[in-house]
Structure formats: structure tokens, C-alpha cells
């Protein structure tokens, strides 16, 4: 049994891991049911800008539009759900004492911390993919397919992506969202190596994300100048993949920055863990 497999088994045999899945299931179902119940009003409101100047036909409020709409909640509850598990990866074992058992076994600390990090990424990926499959699945069931009409900043402001392109773009967007959310996971994971309790890393990482978001969105010169250095600035990478045309240079830049943060957070976690005296 590989270390990764052991870590995945441990992660997915804890009920806490399923809180994230349950919350996402409840949130997506609830949102889509509410939208379905108010479909006409939503469709009018959504196409309101167009309706004054255009005759509009077709399935405006379709699965891809709904999915893009719900994806915005990625910033709200998903970081917390990821931190809930990532912030617990190392610290919970330190608290429970099982870390001692692991560390007196042949696998080196570097292998153990790497396996835990990979398991955290695996959880993050699975959670986001679950989110995506759920959004799209229920969306198709309730609203059917159609072209994705999207309002975006800059030019073009209104983008219509044909259904088949919308599907692949939405898929790409969710993959990018995994990268985006992995940074929250990496941060919580790093905090998890610093302390022997789970609450600190979870609250700490969420606090960093929220403060970073607020700083990045304040319309002041000073905070504007901070934006390029905040990882939250680049967490909207998935939105770039719904733009048309995709600005691949920008996507590449965002991805590199996010990967850089992932690597930096992991490197610090690795350094701390490998040198850590296990006193608990």
C-alpha cells in the first residue's frame, strides 16, 4: 500500500471529509431548485440588458449559465470546506498522537509530508469535480443545455459561447478552479504543520483568504498596488477560461503564480515538518 493510498484512505474514512461534499450537495441542489422555481423571473432579469435592445430567443437560462453563476460561490464556501480537511491533515495526527506512530516507521518525513500534501490535493480536486458534476448534472436536468451567455469585464462585455464550446470551457474552468482552490488547501496545510491543533489552521487560512480578498478589492491606491502580490488576485483563473477568446498568456500567468504559491506553501510546510521535533 503506497503512502499516498494510506493517506487517502485515512482522509476518506473520516466523516469530517464528507462535510464538504454534503454542504456542496445541499447548496447546489438548493440553489438550482430556487432558480428553477423562479426561472421566468431569473431569465428576464438575466437577459434584461439584452431585452431592451434585442429580441431574444433560445434557452437563456441553461445548465452552463447556471453553472457559471453558481461557480461564483467558489469564493464563499469552498475555501472553508477545503481548509476544513487540509488544515487537519498534519495537526490532527499530532493532536491524536498517531503522527508518532507514522514517524517511527521507515518512510522518511519528506515522503510522509509529500503523501499528505498529495492526498490534500486529491481531496481538493475531488471536491471541486463533485461540485462541477453536480452543478452541470442538476443544471442539465432542470434547465437543459444551451449556449452560454456571459457578461464579463472588459471587451467583449457580452460573450455567447455555443453549447459544445460552453461544455468544454466549463470543464476547463473547473480544472482551473482546482488549481485556484489548491492554494487555499496548501496554505491550510502549511498552517497544519505549524501547530498541534486543527482549529488554528482552519480559521487561520480562512482569515488570510478573507483579508486578502478584501485588500485586493479595496479601491485605494495602496491596496491596488498590493493586488499583484496577493494570491487571491489570481484565484479567479477559472473565469478567464470562460472568456472568449481565452487570453492564454493571462491564464498561464495566473497558473504560474498559483503554482508558485502552492510550491512556496508546500516548501515551507516541508521544511517545518522535516525539522520538527515531535514532542507531543
Amino acid at each position: 500500500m503506497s503512502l499516498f493510498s494510506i493517506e487517502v484512505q485515512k482522509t476518506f474514512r473520516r466523516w469530517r471529509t464528507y462535510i464538504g461534499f454534503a454542504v456542496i450537495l445541499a447548496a447546489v441542489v438548493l440553489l438550482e431548485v430556487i432558480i428553477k422555481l423562479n426561472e421566468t423571473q431569473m431569465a428576464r432579469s438575466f437577459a434584461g440588458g439584452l431585452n431592451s435592445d434585442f429580441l431574444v430567443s433560445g434557452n437563456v437560462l441553461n445548465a452552463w449559465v447556471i453553472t457559471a453563476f453558481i461557480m461564483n460561490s467558489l469564493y464563499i464556501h469552498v475555501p472553508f470546506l477545503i481548509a476544513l480537511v487540509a488544515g487537519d491533515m498534519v495537526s490532527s495526527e499530532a493532536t491524536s498522537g498517531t503522527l508518532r506512530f507514522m514517524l517511527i516507521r521507515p518512510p522518511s518525513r519528506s515522503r510522509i509530508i509529500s503523501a499528505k500534501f498529495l492526498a490534500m490535493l486529491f481531496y481538493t480536486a475531488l471536491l471541486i469535480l463533485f461540485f462541477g458534476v453536480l452543478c452541470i448534472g442538476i443544471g442539465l436536468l432542470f434547465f437543459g443545455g444551451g449556449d452560454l451567455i456571459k457578461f464579463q469585464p472588459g471587451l467583449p462585455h457580452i460573450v455567447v459561447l455555443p453549447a459544445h464550446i460552453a461544455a468544454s470551457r466549463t470543464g476547463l474552468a473547473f480544472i482551473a478552479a482546482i488549481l485556484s482552490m489548491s492554494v487555499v488547501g496548501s496554505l491550510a496545510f502549511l498552517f497544519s504543520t505549524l501547530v498541534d491543533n486543527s482549529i488554528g489552521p482552519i480559521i487561520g487560512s480562512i482569515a488570510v483568504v478573507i483579508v486578502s480578498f478584501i485588500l485586493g478589492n479595496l479601491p485605494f491606491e495602496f491596496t491596488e498596488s498590493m493586488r499583484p502580490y496577493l494570491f487571491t488576485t489570481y484565484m479567479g483563473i477559472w473565469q478567464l477560461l470562460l472568456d472568449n477568446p481565452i487570453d492564454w498568456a493571462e491564464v498561464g500567468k495566473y497558473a504560474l503564480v498559483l503554482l508558485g504559491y502552492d510550491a512556496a506553501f508546500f516548501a515551507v510546510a516541508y521544511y517545518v515538518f522535516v525539522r520538527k521535533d515531535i514532542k507531543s
Partner: protein
Amino acid sequence: MNLMSILFGIVLLFLPPQGGEGTRYLENAIRKFDAIKDYVVDVKVHMDIKAVQAPDMEAKVYYKEPDKIKIDSKGLFFMPRDVGVINPRKFDPDKYAIDVLDTLTCNGDPAVRLSLVLKNDESTGRNVILTIDKKDWLIVEIAAAPYPGRQASAKITYGTFDGFQMPVKVEVNLDVGKIDSTARGFGRERTHLNELKGKVEVYYSNYKINSGLSDDIFKKRNDD
């Protein structure tokens, strides 16, 4: 011809035309369209607007007098509201104060430009300037300024189908001015929108005119 007849003729000559000259021109255009009871047409929309990016969109448009419209499309479809479906009937002469702006030549034929200003602000419709081909009594250009700083004009080209002159192409030029937007997504760079300016071309083909469309076709709610 007796004297009375001559005098009556002279009086008539000096009286202003009933409802105004402009109204008469507009009524001629509406009358021309009277023969169209219904039609079905394939429509293709090509957009060339910086602010809107959409693939060419296709739909089947159903029209029935006086103003029933239904659009059937596989995917998302939108076309300019005022000029997508040319229907002179919607310019009800009773609702507008109509003035002749000037006369001109359009494609070698005499034409007249009319200003239509809504008499009542609460009426549906917009103030428009129509150019009417006096030879065939067809609306060949519609210009509108719905809001200050926003302009839109449409040039209409006609073809003949089953003896009826119907639009084959409508070229809409939009200049909606600058939209000052600070819209941005979370975590995305702040961007400002430029002017909403560009062209929309609407192509019409495969007309089926006066085929006796049932009202049932129009009962299903349109997404518009």
C-alpha cells in the same frame, strides 16, 4: 366642368393634405405592407460589435399581422428589436407627430425622410427617423436615438418573393456611446469598457408568405 367644380378644385388645392404629407407617406408604406398577412423566414444574424461576441446565429422567424412574432432557434438567438422584423404597421400614424425632414434620392429612386415623434411619452415605441422609398413605398432606412448619446440606424435591402418585396438584408449600425463600467469579477483585474459600437447584419431567406399561419404557433411563450 362647371364653375363650382373649378372653385372646389382650387380650394382643395390650397388645403393642407389630410393628416399631413408625412402621414400620407407613412400610410402608403403601411398600405404596401397590408398584403402581407403572415410569413415565415430563415434569419441569420452576424454581429460585429466589440462589446458583444457571439457566433452567427440562425433562427426561423414567424410573423402574423398585426404584430405577432415567434422565433424558433436551436441555440441562443438575438437580433435588434426595432429592426429585426420590419413591420411598418408598428409605426401607427395616430401615435406619432410626423414631419417631413427632407427629400432625397435612394438607390436612384426618390425618397423621403420622416421624423416620427411619439405624441404621448407613455406610448410604446420610440422616436425614429424613417426613410421611405417613394417609388415602391418601402422603408429603406430606420434611424433611432433611444437615449441621449445612443444612436442606431438600419439600412434595409429588399428582394422580391412570390411577388412581395421583403427584406433580404438589414444592416444595423450601433453607436451606443461609452459605457462606464467598473465591473469585474472577484480576483480579476479592474477593466473599463469602451464604447459599444459596431454593426449587426441580419440576412433573410426562404420566405413563405401568406401561408395561413395558425395563431397556435404564437401561443407558446417566446423567450423575448
